[in-house]
């Protein structure tokens, strides 16, 4: 194997093994940051040795054994240090003898629980949302700092800083490495789901830069969601989120035109929708509903996406059902953005005037002041009502608010397409 082939093999092994490695180590050393350093040390050892010795038959076990040795060394050293300082002598010697076999026993435990602990720790509320995202991708997705930085279009040192600070925060706040129980589980699970969906959305409709979609990031989020569904199979909303992501991802190929421009839902070539992902999404909704999750916010959103997925032609879309689902969603998680979406569905089901009424009620909404989709939707409805001058102004305003270059162009095109009154 050439050096670069070995390097690529190591990258792949890291992606497969790193989360379990870090999770197993974190339970031993009770510190996610330290666990990651130990795992990284083992990776560096692999990078040094494997190009000469070849990749071992069971690389995961090799990495685990190496990391475990480092952990034991570290443990011994700190114990020795402690002994010197406190002159505890014999007693600690006995403790050390006890502690080392514990490492082996602990590492043989079911890895599923460890991974779940890692998910909940990485998404702990003491961390900012951005820190949770970065840490989750790093610890669970096996992404490098560089990959995360590229995905979010921020400088690499920013992400590196964010991760270092996140690990320090967890350590300083003495965040326990555990899966919360009862009511806290619910709250924390929603933070985990939010982080995964944020990653997906950043891939699905990039908020900045000149790409409209970054499919790789969607794939990472989908993978995280599927992992989570495997870890907590009885939580309906996890399946709801997976369903939502599978259904949205089924449209990825159709959302981008030949030169990278966005193609809106109703203009998409439905033949390009991925039927495999649609089937997987619909199956995941069924699982969520069977578990009693029909009124979970992600499951409801998935049900909306499913209405589109089931329609072979735009005209077959069940807009009345979509409008009803948005109404349910608005009760569950009231927000102006949901209301805006409901307005679109209502306009499709009951005409642009009915939709415009709902949109106009949102005009005084402070939180939507800089939200480009408000003028964009309003422009669309006004254009349908033949009020082209107003529509043009709205499209122009929407264009000035978006940070996505592709979207800006689309909106300016729409503004230009509004006929001017003939004089």
């Amino acid at each position, binding site marked *: 194997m050439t050096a670069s082939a070995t390097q690529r093999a190591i990258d792949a092994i890291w992606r*497969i093994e790193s989360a379990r490695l870090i999770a197993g180590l974190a339970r031993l050393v009770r510190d996610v940051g330290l666990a990651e350093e130990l795992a990284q040390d083992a990776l560096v050892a692999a990078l040094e040795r494997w190009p000469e010795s070849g990749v071992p038959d069971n690389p995961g076990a090799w990495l685990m054994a190496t990391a475990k040795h480092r952990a034991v060394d570290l443990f011994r050293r700190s114990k020795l240090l402690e002994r010197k300082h406190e002159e505890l002598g014999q007693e600690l010697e006995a403790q050390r003898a006890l502690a080392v076999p514990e490492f082996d026993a602990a590492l043989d435990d079911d890895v599923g629980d460890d991974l779940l602990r890692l998910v909940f720790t990485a998404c702990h509320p003491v961390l900012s949302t951005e820190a949770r995202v970065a840490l989750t991708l790093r610890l669970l997705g096996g992404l490098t700092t560089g990959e995360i930085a590229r995905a979010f279009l921020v400088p690499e040192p920013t992400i590196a800083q964010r991760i270092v600070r996140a690990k320090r925060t967890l350590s300083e706040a003495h965040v326990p490495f555990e899966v919360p129980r009862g009511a806290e589980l619910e709250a924390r699970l929603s933070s985990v789901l939010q982080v995964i969906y944020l990653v997906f959305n950043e891939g699905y409709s990039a908020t900045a830069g000149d790409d409209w979609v970054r499919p790789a990031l969607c794939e990472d989020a989908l993978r995280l*969601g599927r992992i989570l569904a495997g870890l907590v199979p009885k939580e309906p909303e996890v399946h709801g989120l997976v369903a939502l992501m599978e259904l949205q991802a089924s449209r990825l190929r159709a959302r981008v035109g*030949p030169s990278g421009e966005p193609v809106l839902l109703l203009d998409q070539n439905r033949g390009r929708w991925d039927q495999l*992902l649609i089937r997987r999404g619909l199956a995941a909704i069924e699982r969520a509903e069977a578990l009693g999750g029909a009124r979970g916010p992600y499951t409801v959103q998935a049900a909306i996406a499913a209405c589109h997925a089931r329609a072979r032609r735009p*005209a077959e879309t069940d807009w009345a059902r979509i409008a009803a689902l948005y109404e349910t969603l608005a009760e569950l998680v009231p927000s102006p953005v949901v209301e805006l979406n409901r307005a679109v569905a209502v306009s499709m089901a009951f005409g642009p005037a009915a939709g415009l009424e709902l949109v106009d009620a949102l005009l005084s909404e402070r939180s939507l002041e800089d939200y480009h989709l408000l003028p964009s939707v309003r422009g669309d409805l006004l254009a349908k009502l033949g009020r082209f001058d107003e529509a043009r102004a709205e499209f122009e305003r929407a264009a000035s608010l978006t940070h996505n270059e592709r979207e800006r162009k689309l909106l300016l095109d729409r503004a230009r397409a509004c006929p001017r009154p003939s004089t």
Partner: protein
Amino acid sequence: MRFMILIKATKDSETGALPSTELLTEMGKYNEELVKAGILLAGEGLHPSAKGARVKFSGGKRTVVDGPFAETKELIAGFWLWQVKSKEEAIEWVKRCPDPMPGTESEIEIRQVFEAEDFAPSDPTGELMEKENQLRELTESKRR
């Protein structure tokens, strides 16, 4: 990116003999690992070629040939569809697969699945895609 993982047939698999309980159990565990890693999209085992058929194309002619087919090694006994980051990751996962055909030599083949953007070189201007879209619209408007 997606990969099709093809399990090649062997003499044994072509006899239609069912896999042993041990192998089924091991494969079940492996499949569970794939699901838990979030990479498994689909996968199935296939009946022997004796139950299959081929349709041969030659100019305008179509000839149906019933199985079984002779070139056992080139036949497929099962497949998975995975979503992974690289070919190397797919290789690493395949290396973790239990021996699919115990007691005989066998092979698993890894092939990348085409994505829309892969066709860009044959369609540099996007004209073909555009035409396809127009065609669809036309057929759809006729149907209406």
